[in-house]
């Protein structure tokens, strides 16, 4: 039964939140136009709050911090509370600073991480080929409120990450949610400011 729990949660989540797929009001709108409008964003910054629920946790974990994106491949996530943590992705090089320790490695060396990170980054960059390489894509909503539901293609990645959902409005991302191993669910609300778009 325990193994089923994440599935049940996902099912509930999908039923509660997802508008029906392909229920798009604008006939000219779709994955192509969405990706093109996202690709126009050259630099953006955001503040976020994230809630993580897991089987090992009595109470959800609350974190908050800032995000920074610079096209085409720079992403930085800084957690400010409850403890400082810095995650920098530049090209394929990852630098993680937490608890006074800095670790560096390459995305290609860490498949589970690569999948998750590329899902977010490729969406921000409007890079459809990369997104399709890692995920089966399902788009719903409209240009004003859209949701991308990404399901990992790779079985190794699915072991950690069952799905990744990115919601947005226009060319702004408003929410990033994930579901994965150990009944882990994360919900990140994003308040994004576009600094520069072409």
């Amino acid at each position, binding site marked *: 039964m325990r193994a089923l729990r994440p599935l049940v949660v996902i099912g509930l989540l999908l039923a509660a939140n997802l508008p029906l797929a392909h229920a798009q009001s604008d006939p000219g709108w779709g994955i192509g136009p969405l990706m093109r409008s996202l690709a126009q964003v050259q630099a953006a910054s955001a503040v976020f709050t*994230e809630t*993580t629920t*897991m*089987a*090992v*946790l*009595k*109470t*959800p*974990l609350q*974190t908050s911090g800032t995000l920074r994106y610079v096209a085409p491949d720079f992403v930085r*996530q800084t*957690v400010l509370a*409850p*403890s400082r*943590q810095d*995650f920098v992705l530049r090209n394929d*090089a*990852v630098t*993680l600073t*937490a*608890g006074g320790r800095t*670790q*560096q*490695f*390459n995305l*290609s*060396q*860490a*498949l*589970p*991480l*690569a999948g*998750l*990170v590329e899902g977010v980054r490729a969406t921000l960059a409007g890079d459809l080929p990369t997104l399709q*390489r890692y995920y089966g894509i399902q788009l719903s909503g409209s240009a004003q409120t859209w949701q991308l539901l990404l399901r990992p*293609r*790779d*079985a*190794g990645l699915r*072991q*950690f*990450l069952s799905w990744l959902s990115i919601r947005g409005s226009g060319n702004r991302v408003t929410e990033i949610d*994930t579901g*994965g*191993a*150990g009944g*882990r669910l*994360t919900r990140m609300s994003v308040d994004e400011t576009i600094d520069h778009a072409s």
Partner: protein
Amino acid sequence: MRRNWLPVWLCLSLALLCAAIAAHSRYRTDMGDFLPHAHDLAQQALDAQVSSGGASRILLLSVDGAPLAALAQLSRNLGARLRTNPAFIDVLNGDSAAMAGVQDFVWRNRYLLSADVTPRQFTAAGLRAALQNDLSMLSSAFGAVAAESLPADPTGEALGLAQQLGGNTDSGPLMQDGAWFAPDARSAIFLVRTRAPGFDIDAQARALDVIRHQFAQLRADVPGAGQARLHMSGPGVFAVETRDVTKRDVTRLSILATAGAVLFLLIAYRSPRVLLLGLLPVGAGALAATAAVSLAFGFVHAITLGFGVTLIGEAMDYSIYLFTQTLKGDRADRTLARIWPTLRLGALTSIAGFCTMLLSDFTGFAQLGLFSVAGLVAAAAVTRFVLPGLVPDGFFAAGAAGVGAPLRLLLRWQRPVRGVLAVLAIVSAVLLATHPGPMWDDNLLDLSPLSPATQALDQRLRHDLGVPDTRYFVAYRARDIQQALEASEQLQAVLAPLVVEKVLGGYDLPSLVLPSDRAQRARRGALPDDESLHAAFAQAITGLPFRPDAFAAFFKDVARARAAGLLTEASLPPPLSLRLQSMLMRVGHGWMVLAPLRDVTNPARVRAALDAAAPKETVFVDLDQQSADLLHTFQGEAVTLAAAGSVAVLVVLFLGLRSLGRVLAVAAPVAVAVALTAAILTLGGKLSIFMVAGFLLIVALGSNYCLFFARRGQAPEEWERALASIMLANLCTVAAYGLLSLSRIPVLHDIGQTVALGTFLCLVCGAAFSAPPAVRRPR
């Protein structure tokens, strides 16, 4: 004539004995056995890497020519199929199945393997710090990964170990559809490690066939992969390819070369039986030489055999001199009695020259020396005692009559030819003396028979797969494995800061794979008993949002680790076992550790850090430097031996001829020919180490020509036959070696070119300078 059969029977029984010894000899092909005995650690490191290093087992594969999805599936299928074959220890293609065994081992033994396991880690404070770190991990990009292992591994040992064993590299292949790809995503790539070392050529050939066969089978099953192509590279591929090309060239060219020589001899002798008899000295010489080397050294190196047969090629000329110089109506035994002093002196000079090689501490040169000496002694003995009795009565090499004509023409113009040669000799001497830069080719790749395309493929695949260049190593000696592992743990403390300092990209050490018993005991001792651990954990978790009942797996695993036996070499899964073996080598009664360093950006800094802080007798090894040094030593040794050999030749000539003038008449033309040859070869590029063998043969053959040219007191018809025999001998040599120079194999090409050119020049110079003016125009 009454024939004495005793020498024939004696020779036959000796030949049978030698053949029996040769048949039971061990033949080796390891380059290491040919090289000088390694004295210092750095040389031993080179030896070990060359002969059986871990790098020699690596095969690099690439599959292209199909759409990405088809290539990925082909890669997964091929990887799975090869993984079940015992010929392969490791098949890495991005498939996580490849690492499953290692991951499982690391997970099960994380508390013995991790250097972070200390008593402090399992106190309430230590556990609390770890749990707090976990919280921050859970909310990071790593959260998804951390969540899975957290309940069993809250202190994060497995994650740290994975990074450590992964080699801390930040370069790795591109991952596409569960398979590794080259950066352009057009070819799926593999890194395979074979069970057999790269220089076990037969085993490598079988492994390559397995891969080809499986690939062809699987390609047919994967839709869209029909046109896919497989490319392979690596030391094993090179070894097999080199052997095949060599075999093909040697077979094809030696058949051609033999055919050329046989044609000339058939024209001259007009008797197939005599032609076969002519092979007797060289055949007997090769047999005796192989037996002698086998008895003296315990094994015969393949290179000794190859070069040795070349060096005793002189014996082929012995029968030519005997058969061709027999006058019409005369008998072979009387001819032999007439020319024997000259023939004997010729053989003795060569033997003296090769004798100096016996003194070399290069096993290969010493073997070659013994091979040549034993071979020539046997060949000369057969020519002296056996051959004359077997020549049919009344044999006369009728076809050789006109062969000497070019030499007679040359002798008619002896004075102008001398002038021209003298000028050329001076020009050559000046050219050689003023040669800009080094005359010797130091580029090891130029000695390799591999095509530039093959080398380029290897470079590309190595880069794409992130296979580190194995140029720099740390080497040290240890009494036993435990001492080696403990020293390795000390060494890690020196190397880790260098990685942070970025003068070093990464390293591998035996203790990363298998910690010393001492370290394992310390870690096991650091784990608290179940009761203390529960108490400390309860205290640590207070106030943190974790469920206390979520960590049952952790308590179970710690309890199991406390009771576990220590890990030994036998505990390691095959890939880790191979990795350990590739760093630990048996040397004499102890062990040598050879730990590879990756991406060394500042060798001087690494060397200084090791000198300052590493356990004593640890050396920093630059393999490129070592092989360059070795090649220089090799060249130096070859030149020294050649010089010493020349002196020995001159001494024997003087003892035989008893006149400085006559010694000069024989030695000067050979010296001029050698100088001319060297000058011509340097005009075409640098001199290779292989050419030295060619020069030895030029001296051996050329001195015989000159000895016959310089013979005094011959009747005109005897002189006529002598000229014919020299010319015929040279024709056969030039035909045979000239054909060898067509080979793509550098060693065959270089020797062929040198010998063909050099012996021809010896013929010309001998005729110009050695032939006495008194019999210049015999009638």
